[in-house]
């Protein structure tokens, strides 16, 4: 069923228009611009020809199955339009317009009308009050973004579900710069029908999705979401950015437990119990989704650090081990065997202790050997490797080395710098290597691998 939404064979634009100021014009234009390969059916009551395309007066006039219909009409016209979609047996309907329950009672009534007409039908609603979906694989975008202002990411492994349209679009615009792709983006909007809980099921089945990241302001049905998430994290990681943390609105409470039961305390406990990884910003949301999607969980907390710059090594060691301004993991104590082996690889003024410092003399070949040694060391559970390109003996072939070692122990990579470094970050992304442009982000990515590993291990989930 989810196939009809994530990979629609036909899309109808209800309210397609010649008028460039109309939503129906932008949506149709974007569908063509992004290169959607399925069948496009513009619906226009005046039966005009738009962008050289034949239009249909009503969705019911189309002699084809419709997987996805995008209603671009204003709120008061939406219930009637949905009704026609139901009669046509459309699988998914995106209702873009705002002006529903978010504006008050009248809008709420419109939503109730929509729900009434989809009752006992196969038609499902996304929204209303949504930017809709962006599906890079199918090349469908219903968002009203201007291609010269906003970038959209290419194909990737993260499914991105957002309650807010703008936050979703801005985040996608930002990550596009680093070549980070997504498998699908869905904006829930007012989510009168399709909710985050059901979408978890979709993306559990979706082979292109390796991790699911969500931005939520509220939960539509918290208990169901919890139960579903708890099941799904066994096979796919889930990361949630939940806003409204500081709402101290404790329950109408006469006992202590109630007074301490703030929204966020319970959300926090729920996520830990379900094995959901919590993010506190849009950056963390995507960073963690990539770490968990690209890399295996970390079982154990002993981290080896590899660098060619001593400063990065010590700062990272602090960050790894500190409980306060760090993540509270351990800096691994390398075995004597490893140290002997490292002596044969690294120059005498380098460090064979963890953090392992190859110094500016470090070469691609040395990286390879050092990572090999650390992967064999039983005192090491995971690796943080800085791929730094300021020195002469390290070149882009380091990416081949890192890609090869993705098979080894859980490894995250830090790549600092804006010129060649940035290029290499893009390269890492192409190869599915979790790489980050700062030490802090690199270490935190490692931490979430640990949280996931601990969760799975503690509950005997293989």
């Amino acid at each position, binding site marked *: 069923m989810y196939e009809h939404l994530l990979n629609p064979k036909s899309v109808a634009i209800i309210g397609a228009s010649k008028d460039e100021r109309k939503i129906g014009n932008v949506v149709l234009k974007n569908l063509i611009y992004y290169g959607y390969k399925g069948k496009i059916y513009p619906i226009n009551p005046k039966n005009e020809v738009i962008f050289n395309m034949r239009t249909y007066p009503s969705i019911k006039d189309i002699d084809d199955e419709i997987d996805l219909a995008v209603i671009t009409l204003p709120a008061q016209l939406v219930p009637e339009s949905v009704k026609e979609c139901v009669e046509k047996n459309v699988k998914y309907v995106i209702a873009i317009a705002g002006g529903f329950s978010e504006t008050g009672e009248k809008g709420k009534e419109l939503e109730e009308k929509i729900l009434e007409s989809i009752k006992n039908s196969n038609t499902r609603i996304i929204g209303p009050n949504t930017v809709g979906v962006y599906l890079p694989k199918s090349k469908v975008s219903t968002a009203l973004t201007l291609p010269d202002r906003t970038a959209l990411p290419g194909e990737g492994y993260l499914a991105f579900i957002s309650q807010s349209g703008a936050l979703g679009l801005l985040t996608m615009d930002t990550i596009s710069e680093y070549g980070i792709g997504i498998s699908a983006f869905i904006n829930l909007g007012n989510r009168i029908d399709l909710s985050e809980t059901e979408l978890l099921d979709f993306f559990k089945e979706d082979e292109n999705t390796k991790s699911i990241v969500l931005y939520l302001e509220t939960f539509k049905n918290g208990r169901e979401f919890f139960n579903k998430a708890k099941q799904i994290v066994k096979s796919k990681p889930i990361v949630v950015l939940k806003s409204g943390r500081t709402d101290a609105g404790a329950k109408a409470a006469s006992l202590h*437990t109630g007074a301490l039961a703030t929204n966020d305390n319970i959300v926090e406990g729920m996520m*830990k119990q379900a094995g959901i990884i919590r993010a506190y910003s849009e950056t963390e949301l995507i960073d963690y989704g990539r770490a968990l999607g690209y890399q295996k969980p970390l079982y154990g907390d002993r981290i080896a650090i590899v660098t060619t710059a001593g400063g990065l090594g010590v700062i990272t060691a602090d960050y790894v081990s500190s409980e306060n301004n760090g993540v509270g993991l351990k800096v691994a104590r390398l075995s004597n065997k490893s140290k002997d082996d490292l002596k044969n690889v690294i120059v005498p003024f380098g460090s064979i202790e963890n953090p392992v410092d190859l110094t500016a003399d470090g070469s691609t070949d040395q990286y390879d050997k050092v990572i090999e040694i650390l992967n064999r060391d039983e005192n090491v559970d995971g690796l943080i490797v800085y791929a730094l390109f300021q020195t002469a003996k390290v070149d882009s072939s380091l990416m081949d080395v890192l890609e090869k070692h993705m098979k080894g122990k859980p490894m995250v990579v830090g790549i600092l710098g804006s010129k060649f470094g940035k290029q290499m970050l893009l390269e890492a992304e192409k190869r599915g290597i979790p790489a980050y442009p700062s030490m802090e982000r690199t270490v935190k990515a490692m931490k979430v691998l640990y949280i996931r590993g601990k969760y799975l291990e503690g509950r005997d989930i293989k």
Partner: protein
Amino acid sequence: MTDKKVIEEIEVKEMLKKYGINVPDGILVRDLPEKIDLPYPLVLKVSDPNILHKSDVGGVILNIKNYDELALKFKEMKGRFPKSNFLIESMEKPGVEIIIGLIQDKTFGLSIMFGLGGIFTELYKDVSFRLVPIEEYDAKEMVEEIKAKKLFEGFRNIKADKNKVIDLLMKVSSFGMDHYNSIDQLDLNPVIVREDKAVVVDAKLIMK
């Protein structure tokens, strides 16, 4: 609050006992009994569904060492609460005080809380929550999650067994499951945790 029902402490404790939860030995009386079959020292508490926060109104007297003292304090208490019942209990030996509670959350349903008890509960708000029911691993994480976790790991030779807390959390979770839709809030505060056991010293239960 008006439509909600406060259960009397002795009743709550009887309910808890059925789940294998330790509570002090005690008797519910209206007047001073002639003979007490409980080991001293004792605790005397007012027991009245209309008085939720007993200590705030002088409704709890601790460390009563003999019958004469009991008789004196009883008279005093009776004067203050002429229409109420009284609970006489053996006083628990000291240990680490914790709080365990249940609360209905409008988004997630019945949830369980664990934290440091006594005055520290509100001072540090050092608590952790999970949704009911919990698994043993969740209970373990709840204890390890609070900042004061070291109190259960032998800090300064304090002997409070973490496993007794985990066991109690599991029992409270079972209790919660069996009354899932009827519980409004439950406070076990304080629970005294020592090396050999965890004892629920005070229990407040409000049903929907």
